[in-house]
């Protein structure tokens, strides 16, 4: 039994075999075939599919990595259609009646070995290429998903160096029990994904995780941030007991998830969901969401090669807003840049993209991006409770500019005779310290605020949230961040405006008593966190939360605040 300590990223306990995400092994089983013609037809079809994938990979590489990287896929295409390779495979299938997978695998492997045998670095790399392209073709023959996750066919704990958004898209979520990664902090993509799925995760565990192999027995403790390899009998029993208790609390939370979030002394807040697309509607409603506090619009723009049209956006926004009826749905305008890139938008590279032209800064310079989205939102908000919110606002001037564009869109739509949501509420994200500091002025020009703690924390603490080494600084559990949040809430309430919070913190049970005590009006979180948040809010008093918040504002750093809440508000525990 060995234990690795990382950063707790998503709570709960997972027990199961490890699955190493990056190294893919494929089993090619030789067998005899009856119909060589049909076998060769399969081969031709698989090559055609592979061609298409290589063309895509070429285009993507050319765009993102340059000509040299793209050239690799062009060379791989030549290898795929290599006449010598094709004729060897063909003759083996025809004369030996062996399945095409075996013929291709063995022929490609023999070329790879020949190339490796020549003492030349370049040719060794080509050996890798022939293996890569033939295994891509083999995956297509075997009907496996074109992905390093292809071998994932039993419920497992995913172990990886780090996961990119496109990696995580490829995972079959049915088989994912939990995540552990070497890199990343509590707001890395892996962490966000895990919380979205409601499964445990430990991130930032360092290179120790390289010692884990696929199939190793693992336990991950998402509360303590621990990964246990080959747990002994006693440890395994303890974890199983905790898992049972956790599941019991979960059942209890789910039973009250559709009740309002009212404290024992009658203070009510709103608990709403963060969702990314139309698929997010049902899970949010099922979890007890009282609306949508953050509808991320980026997902309409990802995994495609051109901008979504106004009509497409209108349909999606309308479907979502209508699904929630008179409950609020807050659409956030396009938030790209920083760690989120959309290749076809062609954002120039920046040395410091988190401080560069991202989100509203980009949209204000690119009307062809911005206006179709605003027009779609204004149309979609007719007859429901859709609200618009803008990310990365730094100054009052930003809001004024946004409002000008918005007015222009309204005028156009009216002139075109289309239905427009005339009285749509407009809000801003508070995620730049300057906006928090100037909240009193900003409160005069908008209808509401939504605090984005992921960015507000990293900008306030000067700590990159994707860097595991500074994770406790970027966690948001800092008195400096809580004080800014207090400033924002007080300033908004003084002007009769309400404040929500849609960062990861809203769903963190340890943060909820403090935020509640500071007077936060709306908590927006991933749907799986909603029942737990409501259970907690319904079990404590507003008065107690106010006292706790006041103390927390005057404590030291991250751990001190967590320990204090843990001790004084035992209701935060899930076991």
């Amino acid at each position, binding site marked *: 039994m060995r234990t690795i300590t990382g950063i707790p990223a998503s709570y709960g306990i997972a027990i199961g075999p490890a699955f190493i995400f990056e190294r893919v092994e494929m089993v090619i089983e030789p067998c005899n075939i009856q119909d060589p013609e049909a076998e060769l037809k399969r081969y031709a079809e698989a090559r055609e599919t592979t061609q298409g994938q290589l063309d895509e990979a070429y285009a993507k590489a050319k765009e993102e990595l340059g000509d040299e990287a793209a050239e690799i896929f062009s*060379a791989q295409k*030549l*290898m795929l259609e290599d006449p010598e*390779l094709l004729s060897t495979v063909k003759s083996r299938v025809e004369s030996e009646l062996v399945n095409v997978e075996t013929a291709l695998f063995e022929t490609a492997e023999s070329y790879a070995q020949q*190339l490796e045998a*020549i003492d*030349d670095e*370049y040719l060794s790399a*080509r050996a890798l290429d*022939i293996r890569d392209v033939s295994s891509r073709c083999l995956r297509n023959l075997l009907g496996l998903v074109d992905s390093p996750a292809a071998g994932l066919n039993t419920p497992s704990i995913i172990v990886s160096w780090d996961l990119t958004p496109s990696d995580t898209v490829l995972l079959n979520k049915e088989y994912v029990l939990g995540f552990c990664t070497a890199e990343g902090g509590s707001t890395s993509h892996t962490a966000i994904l895990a919380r979205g799925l409601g499964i445990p995760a430990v991130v930032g565990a360092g290179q120790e995780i390289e010692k884990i192999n696929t199939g190793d027995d693992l336990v991950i403790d998402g509360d303590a941030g621990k990964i246990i390899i080959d747990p002994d009998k006693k440890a395994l029993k303890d974890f199983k007991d905790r898992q049972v208790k956790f599941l019991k609390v979960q059942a209890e939370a789910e039973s009250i998830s559709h009740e309002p979030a009212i404290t024992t002394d009658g203070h009510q807040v709103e608990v709403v969901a963060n969702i990314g697309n139309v698929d997010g509607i049902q899970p949010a409603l099922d979890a007890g969401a009282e609306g949508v506090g953050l509808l991320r619009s980026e997902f309409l723009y990802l995994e495609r090669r051109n901008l979504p049209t106004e009509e497409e956006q209108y349909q999606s926004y309308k479907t979502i807003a209508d699904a929630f009826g008179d409950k609020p749905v807050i659409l956030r305008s396009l938030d790209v840049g920083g760690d989120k890139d959309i290749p076809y938008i062609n954002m120039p590279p920046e040395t410091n993209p988190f401080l560069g032209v991202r989100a509203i800064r980009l949209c204000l310079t690119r009307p062809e991006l911005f206006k179709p989205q605003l027009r779609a939102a204004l149309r979609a908000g007719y007859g429901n409770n859709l609200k618009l919110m803008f990310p990365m606002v730094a100054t009052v001037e930003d809001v004024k500019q946004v409002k000008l564009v918005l007015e222009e869109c309204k005028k156009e739509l009216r002139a075109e005779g289309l239905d427009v949501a005339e009285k749509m509420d407009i809000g801003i994200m508070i995620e730049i310290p300057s906006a928090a500091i100037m909240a009193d002025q900003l409160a005069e020009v908008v209808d509401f605020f939504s605090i984005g703690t992921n960015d507000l924390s990293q900008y306030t603490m000067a700590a990159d949230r994707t860097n595991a080494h500074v994770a406790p600084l970027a966690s948001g559990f800092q008195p400096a961040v809580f004080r800014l949040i207090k400033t924002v809430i007080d300033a908004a309430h003084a002007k009769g405006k309400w404040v929500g919070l849609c960062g990861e913190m809203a769903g963190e049970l340890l943060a909820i008593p403090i935020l509640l005590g500071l007077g936060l009006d709306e908590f927006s979180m991933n749907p799986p966190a909603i029942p737990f948040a409501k259970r907690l809010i319904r079990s404590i008093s507003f008065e107690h939360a106010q006292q706790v918040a006041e103390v927390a504002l005057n404590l030291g750093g991250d751990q001190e605040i967590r320990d204090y809440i843990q001790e004084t508000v035992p209701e935060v525990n899930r076991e």
Partner: protein
Amino acid sequence: MPEIAVTINHEVGLHARPASMFVKTATKFSSDVEVTHGEVTVNAKSILAVLTLGAHKNAEIIIKAEGVDAEEALKALKELVLDNFGEHE
């Protein structure tokens, strides 16, 4: 079978991009095209085979072609090699 002999001047030899260009050029013709380096003769339309030749800078290769457009194929391949695969310092 008409044949020509040429010397590879390109820095990386008949590898990498030059090998790809060589194979792509040979593939444009319907004739059978072969390339010999030392003792080994391979199909010039096969990238894998051409790479296994291990023809480095200054290697002499012999190109043979047979078919209706054999002369044109040889001419095109010779030009490609003599033109240093389109790269000039």
